[in-house]
């Protein structure tokens, strides 16, 4: 194995494990709250609270995952890419746990009611669609899959843009009155997607003059 430089080493042995632990904090809160451990209380309606914690964690991690590439482009720090997969998998895990909480504690495994929700209530349909679309991304997140799919891997993983839009929309649609918080997500997501469009536009206009830049995601 080739020698690892100290910068890369610090990322792998310090920053990435710390980030891993940080990503586990919401899960620890939920598990601790349900088990009655001394964590901040889940309140009078723990089911709704847990749904919210898991949903916010999934959306936050999705946006953080989407900010890795712009941050790398802005800072020139290629090490950032090393945590992107982990962040994405955490986003998927929280989305899945959010869905399982909806199925079990929230709906009480009433399949008729769940199917009715999926068919009749558009905000639930789009939330579910976002989760389903995350599955192929999680499955193809391994190094082996990256190698196997080659160029198609990147095309497939562009689905993350659609997923993020569906996820934020899912949130926006069910809020009763206060759209402030979903609006923050809309603004952040617009910035993250807008950045990419702007980069694309710029590289397209400069392409005639300069040779093609190495792959930008």
């Amino acid at each position, binding site marked *: 194995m080739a020698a690892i430089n100290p910068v890369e080493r610090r990322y792998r042995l310090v920053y990435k494990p710390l980030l891993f632990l940080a990503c586990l904090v919401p899960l620890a809160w939920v598990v601790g709250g349900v088990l009655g451990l001394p964590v901040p209380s889940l309140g*009078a309606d723990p089911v709704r609270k847990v749904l919210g914690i898991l949903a916010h964690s999934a959306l936050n991690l999705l946006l953080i995952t989407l900010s890795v590439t712009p941050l790398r482009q802005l800072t020139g720090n290629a090490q950032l890419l090393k945590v992107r997969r982990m962040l994405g998998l955490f986003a998927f895990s929280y989305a899945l746990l959010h869905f399982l909480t909806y199925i*079990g504690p929230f*709906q*009480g495994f009433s399949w008729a009611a769940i199917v*009715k929700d999926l068919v009749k209530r558009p*905000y639930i349909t789009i939330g579910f669609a976002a989760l389903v679309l995350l599955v192929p991304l999680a499955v193809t997140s391994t190094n082996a899959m990256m190698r196997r799919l080659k160029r198609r891997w990147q095309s497939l993983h562009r689905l993350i843009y659609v997923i993020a839009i569906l996820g934020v929309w899912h949130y926006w649609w069910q809020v009763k009155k206060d759209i402030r918080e979903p609006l923050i997500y809309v603004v952040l997501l617009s910035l993250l997607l807008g950045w990419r469009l702007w980069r694309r536009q710029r590289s397209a206009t400069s392409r005639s003059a300069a040779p093609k830049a190495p792959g930008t995601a």
Partner: protein
Amino acid sequence: MPRLKLPGIRPSEITAERFFHMRRDVLAAALGLAASSVLPGRASTATTTAAALRYTRNPRFSVTEKANTFEEITGYNNFYEFGLDKGDPAENASTLRTKPWSVTIAGEAAVTGTFTIEDILKPHPLEERIYRHRCVEAWSMVIPWVGFPLADLLARFKPSSRARFVEFTTLLDPKQMPGQRRAVLDWPYVEALRIDEAMHPLALMVVGVYGRELPNQNGAPLRVHLPWKYGFKSAKSIVKIRFSEKQPANTWALSAPSEYGFYANVNPKVDHPRWTQATERHIGDGFLAGRRETLMFNGYADQVASLYQGMDLRRNF
């Protein structure tokens, strides 16, 4: 009035012993403390700081289900005047000043004008009624209110024959109610009932919970509770009662007419556009308890169904 018979009561829901003793304690405290006694401190969440009330229990109008805890009832509230999260009212309602308080009576009645809360409450003996509470958001609680029949209060104002509706208005004061600084709803909050609904013996004027004065976050000092309707029909912190001939517009129906109607009777057969009303999650049931069936008129069908005979409840939701 026949004794209330409510279906769906499980043995586990019968009042636990600690609640039984709690009621005894409250009664004992009531004997020693006049209703008007003001204890130091703020009547927010702690049982010990709110003044104890003198009241009798009314088992005829009470369900035998286990009541939710004081913490649940006073810590999980929809009261947008103090914020949109369920925990916001308990956190923010301390800015509400309930003394002095006055209520204006207006409209189609012989007796109108502005009355102090003391004048409003004076003639009415208080009773405890354990009511089911069902929120339009499909969660529910069981609450031991202290109050008196709304009909007894309304009758004192001698409504005229043109008084077909009664409208309740909540306090408008963004200084005391910080949630009103944002236009999430068209303030002040207004709710209304048909006069026969308001005169129904189940309609309760509420001044307390668990034997003590109502905490601010529950709608102090004066709120109604209509146990067969979704919670938003029960106006809180009332400053005005108006009798009218025309059906008043109510705040939530104005805000989202496709989702909230004038009647808002609990009805498991008529879904909210975005969720089912056939079942509900009962606060306090625990994380894995699942849902309960929602009952027609929240279990009060025997008492109130006749009010809506011949009406299309799907259209008048």
